[in-house]
């Protein structure tokens, strides 16, 4: 099998973030919230504090590790919600057409017209800040591209002979959508979903940065960046490391998305006998 650099690099980057998030309590040196010690405020990175400390003297290394949990949860769960909504609406609209298609199209266009971050901000302002509201806000605002993609794929796939054959064989509509259409559009959907996951990580950071996401003192990369604004010239490591974490995660997800597209191409999947 051909060596796929983007898949491997993306996979390694994303996997290391996932591992860091899962094993954060064991990998972290200190408690990310409670171990504030003003004696060690704004220490530069070094032997004891690998990534340095912030203005309250908390270990940034530990906080970045714990931040991975929040960022990944938000990224994965909200993107899953988006993908499910987008695929359900887009696939059924493309397959059935008619008034349902018009409704879904109208809704999609509306969603595309509203900047999703602003929409998420509005939802967050209504709900109480917190992880659940963040998941809802980001999970309901970014499905329009997936929906478009699923609809376009369904439109082009439904005239394929095998979909007709499935109808002739007596398959029901839902079964045709799930067994004939969905597997054949999964490639681009997974790619969009993975890329969107990176977007969701960024959106979480942005919302937290604006103070509407995860509230301090809980460590989220966005809120850490927000806290570090004032020290960006005097203690740049406070913002560099959470920023780097976001960068690595999003880069990993994007490369992974690209690599998955190559793998999911059916022509590439030849049975090796």
């Amino acid at each position: 099998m051909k060596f796929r650099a983007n898949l491997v690099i993306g996979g390694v980057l994303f996997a290391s973030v996932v591992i860091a998030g899962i094993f954060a309590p064991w990998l972290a040196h200190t408690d990310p919230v409670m171990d504030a010690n003003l004696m060690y405020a704004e220490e530069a990175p070094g032997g004891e504090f690998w990534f340095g400390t912030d203005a309250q003297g908390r270990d940034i290394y530990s906080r970045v590790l714990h931040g991975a949990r929040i960022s990944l949860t938000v990224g994965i769960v909200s993107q899953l919600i988006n993908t499910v909504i987008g695929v359900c609406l887009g696939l059924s609209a493309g397959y059935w057409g008619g008034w349902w298609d018009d409704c879904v199209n109208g809704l999609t266009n509306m969603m595309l017209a509203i900047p999703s971050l602003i929409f998420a901000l509005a939802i967050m302002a209504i709900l109480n800040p917190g992880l659940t509201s963040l998941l809802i806000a980001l999970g309901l605002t970014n499905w329009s591209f997936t929906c478009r993609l699923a609809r376009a794929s369904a439109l082009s796939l439904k005239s394929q002979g095998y979909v007709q054959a499935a109808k002739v064989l007596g398959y029901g509509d839902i079964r045709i959508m799930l067994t004939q259409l969905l597997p054949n559009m999964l490639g681009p959907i997974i790619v969009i979903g993975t890329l969107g996951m990176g977007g969701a990580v960024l959106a979480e950071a942005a919302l937290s940065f604006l103070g509407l996401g995860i509230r301090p003192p809980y460590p989220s990369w966005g809120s850490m960046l927000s806290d570090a604004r004032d020290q960006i010239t005097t203690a740049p490591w406070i913002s560099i490391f959470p920023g780097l974490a976001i960068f690595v995660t999003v880069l990993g997800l994007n490369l992974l998305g690209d690599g998955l597209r190559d793998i999911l191409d059916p022509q590439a999947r030849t049975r090796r006998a």
Partner: protein
Amino acid sequence: MEASYGATIMNSPPADTILKVEDLAVHFPLGGGLFGGRRRYLHAVDGVDLELKQGECLGLVGESGCGKSTLALTILGLQEPTRGRIILDGQEVAGKGMDRKARARIAQMVFQDPYSSLNPRQTVRTTLEAPLRLHGITAPSEIEGRIAEMLGRVGLRPDHAERYPHEFSGGQRQRIGIARALILEPKIVILDEPVSALDVSIRAQIINLLLELKETLGLSYIMISHDLGVVEHMSDRVAVMYLGRIVETGGWESIFTKPRHPYTRALISAIPDPFERSRGDKIMGEIPNPLDVPSGCGFNPRCPEARDICRIPPVPDLEEIGEVHFVRCRRAREIAAGDAAPASTG
């Protein structure tokens, strides 16, 4: 059509009618209606009567756009008829009268393009197994047995079951398509240009396979084609369609040796023949706009035999001019009389 079955090839006892189509019409609504006044309809199929006997192969020929594919889709239930009746194996299936599954066990279809008619993400096994499961056959041993048997019948090896469609050639893919159509043991198979997408060298193999399967499994075929060579080889009876109507129908011998409708004659003369320059008049021009059908006989603008009588509405009736030979042409008898070919029947 009350006539007896074509006597040329049949050697089985009087066969039952397995499919009967009566006055079937499919009209597609077009835009307009809101401001454009009267809503317009495209008459894709316009009053077709058909009968298919057990064990028979009916060739359905005509140009692109004559409605033959729409007719097939309507018989299979993929298209709602505007009017008319379809009786499949003694049961009426007007509109939603029979559910998809019951219909699937009677009538199946083999598609034209073997490249788009197989799901690229399903192995051959899944393609054949899923319909069986859907229709209530769940015992693993029975599924296994039927898949192996079907693969054998269409000339594939059992180990082909684990492969994906892209690993097969066009001819093999069409064999898989045939296996899928036959896995539910239907009685009628509609063949939509089954060999036209294949290499010439493969065509004969697939045609022979289809003929062999028809014999061994007692199938009835409706074969849609514009390749008259294939139709001549396979069909017991032939129906020629033009602008949504059947213009001539009869046993394959009478159609090919004594065609009466000028359109049929033109089609037959268009078969490439290496020994003769031409077997008759070619027709010119395009099929008329189905939205603006010529009055009287729909074929009159292109017909070399058209006279004034042909332009008078209504549409000519399908008249019996020979044994199980029907023609929709007012001048059929005159044309036959002036024909050099021995035209004794009629």
